[in-house]
C-alpha cells in the first residue's frame, strides 16, 4: 500500500482497508419496528437485521420473506430492525470526521453516516443447523424447544442452536428468509426462534402439510448475528 489506510481490530478482524476494490462499509442508517405482516422498504443493496418485538411464544421469532422483492422485506411477526447501507449511498450529517476512499475514489467509509454501529457477534455457516418446528409455530403443538434436527441442505442430525447467551439485544440478518402460509399448509425457511427462557436462539425451518407431509429444513444461508451499539 503506497497510501491510504488499513486497520485491523481485535483478533485480526477486518476494520477497513483502502486497498480493497469491492468492499464497502455498511453504516446503520435506520432502526425501528415493523408490524407483523408489514414490509420494510429498503434499497436493493441494504442489509437488514432484526430481532423479535415480543418475547411471547408464538411471536418470538424473526421470520421474513425477501424473495418477492429486492427492495422490501416482509416479516411474519412484529420485529425491531436495523437497516445498514453502503457508505457511498448513505446520507451524512456534519462537516468533520473521517472518510476513506478506495483507489477508484469510491467512499468505503464515512464516520458522518451513522451515530451507532452493529457489532458482529459471530456467524453460522449454511447447512450447519438442524431443521425443526419450534414452540408457537402455529401449525402443530410443540411443547419444548427442539435442540437437534435434520434437514436439507446438509445431511445428518445437527444442533439447532444458532446462538447461546442472552438474546435480548441480538439481531440476526434478515436477508434470505422465506415463509408461506396459504391456509392448508405452512412453510418457513431460515427462521430464528428466540428462546428467551433458556437464553438461546434456535433455527426453525419446515414444510408442514397436515396428514400429508412434514419436512425439516436446515439453514440454507449463512446466519450473521449482531448487537446494536448506540
Amino acid at each position, binding site marked *: 500500500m503506497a497510501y491510504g489506510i488499513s486497520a485491523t481490530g481485535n483478533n485480526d478482524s*477486518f476494520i477497513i482497508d483502502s486497498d480493497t476494490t469491492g468492499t464497502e462499509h455498511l453504516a446503520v442508517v435506520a432502526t425501528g419496528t415493523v408490524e407483523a405482516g408489514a414490509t420494510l422498504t429498503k434499497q436493493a443493496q441494504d442489509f437488514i437485521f432484526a430481532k423479535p418485538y415480543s418475547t411471547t411464544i408464538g411471536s418470538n421469532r424473526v421470520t421474513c420473506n425477501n424473495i418477492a422483492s429486492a427492495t422490501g422485506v416482509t416479516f411474519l411477526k412484529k420485529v425491531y430492525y436495523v437497516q445498514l447501507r453502503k457508505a457511498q449511498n448513505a446520507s451524512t450529517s456534519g462537516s468533520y470526521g473521517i472518510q476513506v476512499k478506495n483507489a477508484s475514489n469510491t467512499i468505503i467509509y464515512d464516520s458522518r453516516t451513522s451515530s451507532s454501529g452493529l*457489532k458482529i457477534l459471530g456467524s453460522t455457516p449454511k447447512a450447519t443447523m438442524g431443521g425443526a418446528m419450534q414452540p408457537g409455530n402455529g401449525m402443530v403443538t410443540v411443547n419444548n424447544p427442539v435442540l437437534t434436527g435434520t434437514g436439507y441442505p446438509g445431511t445428518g442430525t445437527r444442533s439447532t442452536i444458532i446462538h447461546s447467551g442472552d438474546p435480548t439485544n441480538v439481531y440476526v440478518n434478515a436477508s434470505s428468509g422465506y415463509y408461506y402460509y396459504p391456509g392448508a399448509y405452512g412453510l418457513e425457511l431460515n427462521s430464528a426462534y428466540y428462546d428467551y427462557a433458556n437464553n438461546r436462539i434456535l433455527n426453525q425451518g419446515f414444510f408442514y402439510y397436515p396428514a400429508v407431509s412434514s419436512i425439516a429444513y436446515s439453514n440454507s444461508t449463512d446466519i450473521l448475528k449482531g448487537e446494536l451499539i448506540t
Partner: protein
Amino acid sequence: MAYGIQIRNGTGTNEIFGHNISNTHFLASGSVTIAANGQSNDIDVEGMTALNTNTIGVGVNSQLYAYVDIVRETGSFYITNSSSTNSLTASYFAYRY
C-alpha cells in the same frame, strides 16, 4: 487499546466502529436466472475463499428454495440449480465482517 482506530458515538461513550467493533461490509448483491440443472456465472466477491466462512458470508434465496445452493471459490462463488425441470431466479447478498 494501545493502538488502532476507534470511532465513537455522539456522546463519546461507546465505540461504534473500530478496534473492538467488527462491523459489516458490502461485497456483492443481485439476482440471477439459472436454467434447470445449471449454474450461474461466477459472481466476484473480493477476499472470498472456499473456506473463510468466518469472515465472508453469503445469503442466497429463491422461490425454488429446495433446488438452490452455492459453491464458494477463490474470489467468487456461483449458484447452482439442481432442479431437472425448472429454471429459477435466485437473489444473493455477500458481506464481510
